[in-house]
């Protein structure tokens, strides 16, 4: 385990130096929130400032766990870094575990920054436990995207992984309602996405202080699906990595 932690630590220090990563996980959500956060509207029964806060926090966190990892994993697989690690005493699954750990650690600050912005710029006020539950919900949602990133990173070449990543991520961001609240037919369709589950859980907590079981189950199911996909992707490429 200490080896896995050492690798996760190295991954984190790499991420800190990565400008592209900082732009997507921190700069973009902050910028969007500053521009759109103060609209006089509501979303899912809460003030827009609150909705947009969890939306942008999710956007930054998921993008950090997903966009960055798909491209890294695919590239490092091609470059042979994963192969080189397999020649060390590090256990076989450590590479993936360390990547996910690093993502989970680095997304916390990006969520917290957007939350601080929501509190002091957007004027969102709620009980302390609600802040914590919202943070946890988005954080757990990040795991879903880290798992999907592993699946895509192992299966796709660096050339094709970039466009696929962008399409998949924007699909889930827009149709999951991270950018604007869904309604009508769009909502009927978007209700199935993992991103929607996270937005719904957090806005429910903010608005009513309750959580619908169906959204919790939704999160669990999506996580299970992507973990199965990731496991399959890692196993099926074992001889070519």
């Amino acid at each position, binding site marked *: 385990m200490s080896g896995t932690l050492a690798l996760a630590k190295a991954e984190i220090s790499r991420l800190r130096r990565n400008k592209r990563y900082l732009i997507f996980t921190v700069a973009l959500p902050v910028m969007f929130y500053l521009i759109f956060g103060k609209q006089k509207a509501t979303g899912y029964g809460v003030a827009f400032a609150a909705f947009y806060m969890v939306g942008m926090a999710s956007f930054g966190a998921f993008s950090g766990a997903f966009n960055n990892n798909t491209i890294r994993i695919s590239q490092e697989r091609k470059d042979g870094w994963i192969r*080189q690690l397999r020649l060390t005493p590090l256990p076989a699954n450590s590479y993936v575990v360390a990547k996910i750990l690093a993502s989970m650690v680095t997304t916390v600050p990006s969520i917290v920054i957007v939350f601080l912005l929501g509190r002091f710029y957007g004027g969102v006020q709620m009980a302390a436990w609600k802040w914590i539950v919202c943070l946890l919900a988005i954080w757990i949602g990040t795991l879903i995207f880290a798992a999907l990133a592993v699946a895509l990173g192992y299966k796709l070449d660096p050339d094709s992984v970039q466009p696929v990543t962008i399409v998949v991520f924007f699909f889930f961001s827009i149709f999951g309602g991270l950018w604007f609240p869904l309604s009508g037919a769009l909502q009927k369709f978007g209700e199935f996405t993992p991103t929607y589950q996270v937005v719904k859980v957090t806005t429910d907590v903010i608005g009513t202080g309750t959580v619908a079981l169906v959204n919790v189950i939704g999160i669990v199911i999506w996580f299970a699906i992507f973990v199965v996909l990731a496991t399959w992707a890692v196993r099926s490429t074992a001889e070519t990595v």
Partner: protein
Amino acid sequence: MSHYGTGYGTARRDGSPHASATEYGTDRDYQSTAGYASTASTSTSTSTSTSRPVVSFVNVSKQYGTLKAVDGLSLDLRPGETTALLGPNGAGKSTSLDMLLALRKPTSGKIMMFGSDPYHAVKSGRVGAMLQSGGLMPEVTVRELITLVTTLHPKPEPIDLTLKRAGIDKFADQRVDRLSGGQTQRVRFALAIVGKSELIVLDEPTTAMDVETRRLFWDSMKAEVAEGRTLLFATHYLEEADQAADRILVINRGRLLADGTPAEIKAKAGARRITFHLDQVDEQFLLGLPGLANLEVRRDFVQIQTSDSDATLYAVLDAGLRPRDIEVTGLGLEQAFLAITAEDDAANGSASRGDDLR
């Protein structure tokens, strides 16, 4: 014993299945005693003159679809030995090393390393390796990378010593993704020695190195070997194999064609070449000459590869023949290697010649 299946063809071709059975019998004996040997120190295994092998391939094959990349490979590596793996592109060198390092699974056969399977041997940190296909983590400095991999090993070399030995201390604070090809290669070498491992496996280690770097590389490699490490390396540079290796394994088409010291390999291929002109060539007579390894006749021009040029030449003269323009030249390892693989390619997949050479 089902995994010895592919070896059966060899036995049948020889017409001596018993000889083969005995040969495999020793492998089986080794495996049954391996359990005891792992608790005793190596010096107590006195049944044979050589100590317990570090690595054993027992009739290992690897099939990719219809292509047989490795075909019934059996070999042992002994502790402290420096072994070169020679073979043309596509001979199965990399696949063999991949299987040894638990990156690929053999289709059939068995590989043992330090009395355990390859995966657990690698995970115990007793093997250090540098592969052509191995890459480095980008965006970190050389020192950070070496420090990381050092912490992954149970009994590592001190970081500064690794940097010095691999000759990378001068650019330790540069970023890994900004190094030249030769520098990158040295960092990869550092990763192979960082764990102070008992076995070091190198696949084409000096590719992309300039002459000076290559010399430095072999100097530091010799320091590793002097500390009692076992070294296995694949190479295209026959000169390196000749100078650095105690033992050379020639493989072609996934099979072991020759196994011996560099001198033995040269001898097996016919270490010298005799050429002369002769009227009325009698090929049947020439084929029966002592030491003859290969014969080529073009009208009155005769070219013989022989393991004993004196005996061959005396036999020609004793038969009353008087060849003209006699030339005797020594063959280097390169020609020996080419001769061995060309002979195998001519035989096109028949295993018997390879076994003769062995």
